[in-house]
């Protein structure tokens, strides 16, 4: 859509007054860095970058993704539940420059970390995702939000039924596991330490080996 790349959100309703001539001029066109630069920056090969870019540009012809498009793309993978909250957190994590849009570089750099990075990098990235206000520690409220967003993606029809307390219990579980000094927040060191000692997490990390 021609609104991709605009930095402010636009209401979708057919409000005649809001469509002015100006709107058409302010659509942003964005071109990514050169292929070889990106290849150096990330751990992807040229071919992989080509495939990624083709998919990216197909969905976002203007070259950047805004949050709405991001959410709509992500929601297509999770038709059962509501993935908008989690997509929002993801967007925040991808948008490293905090300007409301994700360019191809941001996209591919983050992907490179998640898929091809070292274990530490991956865990760092996950921590960054959880740390909503980017202050270096995960509070209970932040974790609760994340947990709710994850459970929302499941939708209503699950077995067994998701109780109202399930997210909270899960958060408690998490803090019990991660918060070593019981100060109510999880810092990056605690996080890294616990995860690296946790076998199931380490095993799960291998999931990313074959994604691309």
């Amino acid at each position, binding site marked *: 859509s021609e609104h991709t790349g605009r930095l402010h959100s636009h209401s979708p309703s057919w409000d005649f007054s809001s469509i002015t001539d100006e709107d058409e001029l302010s659509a942003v066109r964005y071109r990514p860095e050169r292929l070889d630069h990106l290849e150096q920056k990330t751990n992807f090969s040229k*071919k992989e970058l080509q*495939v*990624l870019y*083709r*998919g*990216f540009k*197909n*969905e976002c012809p203007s070259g950047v993704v805004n949050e709405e498009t991001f959410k709509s*793309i*992500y929601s*297509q*993978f999770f*038709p059962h539940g509501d993935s908008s909250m*989690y997509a929002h*957190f*993801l967007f925040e994590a991808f948008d490293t420059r905090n300007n409301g849009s994700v360019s191809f570089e941001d*996209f591919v750099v*983050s*992907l490179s970390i*998640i*898929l091809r990075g070292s274990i530490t990098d*991956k*865990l760092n*990235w*996950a921590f960054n*995702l*959880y740390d909503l206000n980017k202050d270096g520690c995960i509070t209970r409220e932040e*974790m609760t939000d*994340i*947990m709710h967003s*994850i459970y929302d993606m499941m939708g209503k029809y699950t077995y067994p039924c998701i109780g109202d307390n399930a997210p909270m219990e*899960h958060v408690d*579980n*998490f803090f019990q596991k991660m918060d070593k000094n019981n100060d109510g927040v999880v810092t990056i060191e605690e*996080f890294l330490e616990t*995860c690296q000692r946790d*076998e*199931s*997490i380490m*095993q*799960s*990390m*291998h*999931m*990313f*080996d*074959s*994604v*691309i």
Partner: protein
Amino acid sequence: MATGVAAWLPFARAAAIGWMPVANCPMPVAPMANSKRKDELIILNVSGHRFQTWRTTLDRYPDTLLGSSEKDFFYNEEIKEYFFDRDPDAFRSILNFYRTGKLHYPRHQCISAYDEELIFFGIIPEIIGDCCYEEYKDRKRENLERLQDDQEENKDMKLPHMNFRETMWRAFENPHTSTMALVFYYVTGFFIAISVLTNVVETVPCGSTANQKDMPCGERYTVAFFCMDTACVMIFTVEYLLRLFAAPSRYRFMRSVMSIIDVVAILPYYIGLVMSNNEDVSGAFVTLRVFRVFRIFKFSRHSQGLRILGYTLKSCASELGFLLFSLTMAIIIFATVMFYAEKGSSSSKFTSIPASFWYTIVTMTTLGYGDMVPKTIAGKIFGSICSLSGVLVIALPVPVIVSNFSRIYHQNQRSDKRRAQKKARLARIRISKSGSANAFLHSKRNGLLNELLELTDTEEDEQKLTKSTSLLESQHHHLLNCLEKTTAHAFVDEQMYEQNCLETALQTYPSRSPSLSSHDSSVGTCCSRRGKRNTPLPSSHPVPTHQGPLQELSAIHIQCCDRPSHTASRSNLNRKTDESGRLNSKGSRITTAIISLPSPPALTPDADSLRRPPQRRPPLTLGHPAAPSIQTTTSSAGTNIVKVSSL
């Protein structure tokens, strides 16, 4: 999962990193990408136009032809391309669908051609993008209407046996079908006109008699007008009752608009008859006479244009409703304003708001009778605003109604034109079809000839003949032969068939050979025709001549029994040769001539046409073959001769 975002699946899977640290158990093992499929370019060759795209592009929609393994059927190993023998222009928009995720409908494309392409490539039309969907639906609806129109015409054409009631109804609905109907149509039209004219002339002053002032004609020649009225009402009543009787669904007929008009046209007369003695209800009686003018609406059965107008008004009901509503609003507003504006002036005609309605209506419709005129300045100002706005309010819905009328009218014109063209079209189609039927007969003749010649070892002739028909034709003819064999009936052509029908009607079948004893009596045309045909021949009567020499066979006959079929066909052959000689001499269109040789029992039955279902004839053994064995078998089997008429 959906469509174009398949390319984002790696991202979605990467995003799962957020779940892993909070999960209490390890994630399941990921599926290995089997045979790391590189993204390769696929070449789609559509009638010579090469389209190239990534394989993954096509894989986005796995439930279509191009996205599934179905396209492997079209893969050409030699050129390493997928070849489709379809229209490249239409393919362009289909391939764009894979690329962009949106299916567009190109406006210049014919709707049915496009539909066919979509069906071929396994794409449902519902996913056409919003930009093109309306256009697509409109065109499709138009096409359907057109086809429906044509089908309704066809319904008219075919007349199976209809009983009297149905015939009558059909005569009423389509006057051009029979002369009686046409006469009826014109007579009723005439009487409607007479009736309306009478009603009008009744009120004209007729010239004064000696002692009285001008009287309307109606009062002067009361008896004459009454007789005229009675006659018209008689006719209308009879017509209504006849229609009621003939209607397939009486209840629906009684609810239809035309019948209500009919009733309203004739009721006043009867009510008047009943009530004419009572003086105090004469006022009501006079009102009733007004309803007689509705007879003029009966003309809408006679006029297509009137019906279209009525239909247009019905379909524009919402626009008319809007017009009425806005007018009412405006009238009330302006009447109120004018009333209060003119309240001050003396001897003002604007005595109340309802009284001002009249002024407002007259002004808004720009009539301006002048019987009510504002005198104050304020009144004049508002009066002028009123007239200006009246023009606008009325002008708005009118173009909608006009365009609706125009569209319906043109549709009607088109269907009339198509009906006229249709006859010529059908005739041409029939000619081309019968060409192919004749080809079958022709080649059958040649084919049979082939076989016979084959058996007698003249190979050069055989080769000559086989060259004349293409492989496709010969395979087609073989197929028809198989059908004939299966049903043990043969194809004949139209002329034959009709001749036979005529002859059945005309003649009874003369008794034949002794072998045919019991089954002779009620045979069909074949025998009768044979009989007729046989007379000029010296060997006219079938009985004595079946020794082996050629029998003449006017129509195609087949013995409908399994076993003796060869033998029967042999006798048929015999017959046929005779007939062929005869037919050729008469220069008829029938190609049943097959030259037969006495010895070989050729298996092909003779038949002409490709279409008509076989007509069963009562059992008749016509076979008078030379060999006694054949004779006995035919008679014992009680074979039927069946004649199949052609297209």
